[in-house]
């Protein structure tokens, strides 16, 4: 896998998800963590930023924020911390959008 993009800020608070998704290349993956998980809410205005991307979201951060699976966009992988490590290991590079 080419690059793993990490987004940890709410798309309603910063433009990080907008920039990250706009610079992703074929084969790249996006992982939403911390407040970044709000970007995965299906009926939210920012959900369209994820169209056509390979996206994962960190389950413990979703649970902490009371966002249940049925609220999320389709075709999204919910992973745990071990899955996070696997994604990093499978990537050539990681870009953390702070």
């Amino acid at each position: 896998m080419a690059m793993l993009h990490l987004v940890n800020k709410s798309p309603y608070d910063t433009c990080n998800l907008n920039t990250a998704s706009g610079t992703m290349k074929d084969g790249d993956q996006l992982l939403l963590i911390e407040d970044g998980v709000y970007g995965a809410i299906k009926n939210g205005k920012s959900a369209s930023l994820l169209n056509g991307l390979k996206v994962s979201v960190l389950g413990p951060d979703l649970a902490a924020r009371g966002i249940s699976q049925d609220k999320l966009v389709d075709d999204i992988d919910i992973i745990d911390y071990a899955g996070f490590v696997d994604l990093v290991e499978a990537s050539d590079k990681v870009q953390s959008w702070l």
Partner: protein
Amino acid sequence: MPDAKKFMYINRKAPYGTIYAWESLEVILIAAAFEQDVSLAFMDDGVFQLTRGQDTKGIGMKNFSPTYSALGDYEVTKIYVEKESLEERGLGLDDLQHLVWEDEDEDYAEKDSIHLVSRAELADLFAGQDVLFNF
């Protein structure tokens, strides 16, 4: 309370990414103890503070969301949630905690604390305050 001032706390940050939400809650509880006229507004990412079912075991942080349901006991009974912010984030009132207070003048009848308001209505509420705190 003839000398009570109207204090409004405006909460605009998501709950666990920064410490603002928790700090705001602490300040609100202190202010309520001084018998001021306290009201809360939740707008922008602040609406995420009130989601029901928060479970922080997996991230090793304190879950402070149950504290919101104690606000009624501190006579904090006016909680305004901005409709536009909720909708933009793909949420509705059903996704939030059901917060109530007991009205001692009406035989302790349970009443809703949360009022859904538009941005324009919130602007009117801001205009009627003596002091505003933004978190």
